[in-house]
C-alpha cells in the first residue's frame, strides 16, 4: 500500500519541479514549518466552510441526457483491483455513538425509503462527471439507528482500505445518501458496490466506496487523502 501510494504521488508530481524544497506535504509524519503553516490554514478553511455550509442549499441536479456515459472510474488503484464484496453475506457494521449497532444487510437497506438524484461529481483534480445515484438518505438512516446527531463526525471504512469522514451537518443534508444503485442498476465493484456514500455537496474523494463500517464520533477520524494533506471539509 505504502509503495503504491508513493508511486502515485510520484506520478502526480510528474513534470512538476520543486521550486521550494520542503513545501510539499511529502511526509505527513514529519511536517516541516511550511507543512505546519498549511495545516493551520487548512483547519481554518474547514471552519470557514462549515460556516458557509447552508443545510438548505441543494447541489444542482441535471437531466438524464446530461449523464456522463461511459462513467469514469477513479481510485488510488487501477480498475481491476477494485474490491469485490460478497453481497449475499454483506453487512454494514455500525460503531460509535449509535444506539442500535445491529449490522445491516443489503436487503434491509433496500427496505428503507430510497432517494434518487442526478448530480455532478467534482473531483479534487478539477474534472467533473454527472451521474445518477439512488439509495438511503444518510440522515434518515442515522435517525433510524438512533445515532447521536449532535456528534461532530460520521466516519467510513471501506473494503479497499480507504477511509474518510464528514461533518454531521453535511451528513444530514437531504442529498447525502448511502447509494445502492448507480445509473439505475445496483452498484458494481469499480463504482463502490455494495454501498457507497454519495454526497454532492463535497468533492469526489469525500464519497467513499464499498463501505464496510459506519461510525458516529466526536474524535476526528481523518481520511486516506485527508491525512496526506487534502483539505478535510472539501465542501463544494
Amino acid at each position, binding site marked *: 500500500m505504502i509503495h503504491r501510494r508513493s508511486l502515485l504521488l510520484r506520478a502526480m508530481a510528474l513534470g*512538476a519541479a520543486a521550486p521550494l524544497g520542503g513545501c510539499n506535504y511529502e511526509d505527513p509524519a514529519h511536517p516541516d514549518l511550511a507543512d505546519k503553516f498549511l495545516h493551520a*490554514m487548512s483547519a481554518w478553511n474547514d471552519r470557514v466552510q462549515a460556516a458557509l455550509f447552508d443545510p438548505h*442549499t441543494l447541489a444542482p441536479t441535471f437531466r438524464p441526457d446530461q449523464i456522463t456515459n461511459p462513467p469514469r472510474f477513479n481510485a488510488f488503484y487501477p480498475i481491476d483491483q477494485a474490491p469485490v464484496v460478497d453481497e449475499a453475506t454483506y453487512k454494514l457494521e455500525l460503531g460509535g455513538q449509535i444506539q442500535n449497532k445491529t449490522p445491516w444487510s443489503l436487503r434491509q437497506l433496500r427496505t428503507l425509503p430510497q432517494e434518487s438524484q442526478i448530480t455532478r461529481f467534482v473531483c479534487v483534480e478539477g474534472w467533473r462527471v454527472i451521474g445518477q445515484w439512488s439509495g438511503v438518505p444518510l440522515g434518515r438512516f442515522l435517525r433510524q439507528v438512533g445515532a447521536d446527531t449532535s456528534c461532530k463526525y460520521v466516519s467510513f471504512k471501506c473494503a479497499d482500505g480507504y477511509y474518510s469522514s464528514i461533518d454531521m451537518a453535511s451528513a444530514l443534508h437531504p442529498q447525502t445518501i448511502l447509494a445502492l444503485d448507480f445509473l439505475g442498476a445496483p452498484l458494481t465493484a469499480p463504482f463502490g458496490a455494495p454501498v457507497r456514500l454519495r454526497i454532492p455537496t463535497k468533492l469526489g474523494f469525500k464519497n467513499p466506496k464499498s463501505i464496510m463500517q459506519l461510525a458516529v464520533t466526536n474524535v476526528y477520524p481523518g481520511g486516506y487523502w485527508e491525512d496526506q494533506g487534502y483539505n478535510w471539509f472539501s465542501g463544494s
Partner: protein
Amino acid sequence: MSRRVIHPWPLRLTHWLNALAMVIMIGSGWQIYNASPLFGFTFPIGLGQWLGAGIAWHLAGMWLLVFNGLIYVIWSLASGHYKKLFPIRPREVWGDFRSALSLHLKHETGVYNAVQKLLYAGVLLAGVLAVLSGLSIWKPVQLWFLCNLFGGYVIARYVHFFAMTGICLFILIHLLLVALVPKVLPPMITGGRLP
C-alpha cells in the same frame, strides 16, 4: 512630506504582499492545473510537489490575495489614488503605445502614462475575475449564484485559467518595463521623492 513621496507606503506594502500572493497563487495554480489539464499541455513547474500541496498553498494564499487586495482597494478609494488610473483615453493609449515601442516614451515620475493606466486597470479587472471565478470553482454549490454568473462550473474553470493568463502577461510586460527603466524600482521599495 507625504505629498512628495512617489509611492506612499500603503501602495508599496500591498504591492509587495501582492507579489508574494502572485507567486503562491500562480505557482500552486499551475500545480493544480497539471492534475487535470484544460488544454494539451502541462506547466513545467508548480508550487508544492503534488496536487494536495498545490491545493493547500492555493487555499492558504487566497486569503493573502483577497485581504491584501481589499486593503489596496479601500486605501486607493480613500486616498484618491484610483484617480491616477483614470481617465483612460484610447487616443492617448495608442499614442503612448507607439512612442513606447519606439522607446521614445518619456517616464514622468509619479504619473501613469496612458499605456500604464490601461495595463493597471486591466490587471485589476483580471484579478477580480480570477478571485470570483476561483470562488465559483471552490464553492459551486454554496456560491451557486456566483457560479451561474460565469455560466457554470466548467466555464468558470476556463475563466479562471484565462484570468491567470492575463495576469501572467501583465507580469511579463511589467517586469520587462522595469528592466528597460530600472530607476523605477528603488522608489517602489523606499518610496522615493518627487523631484
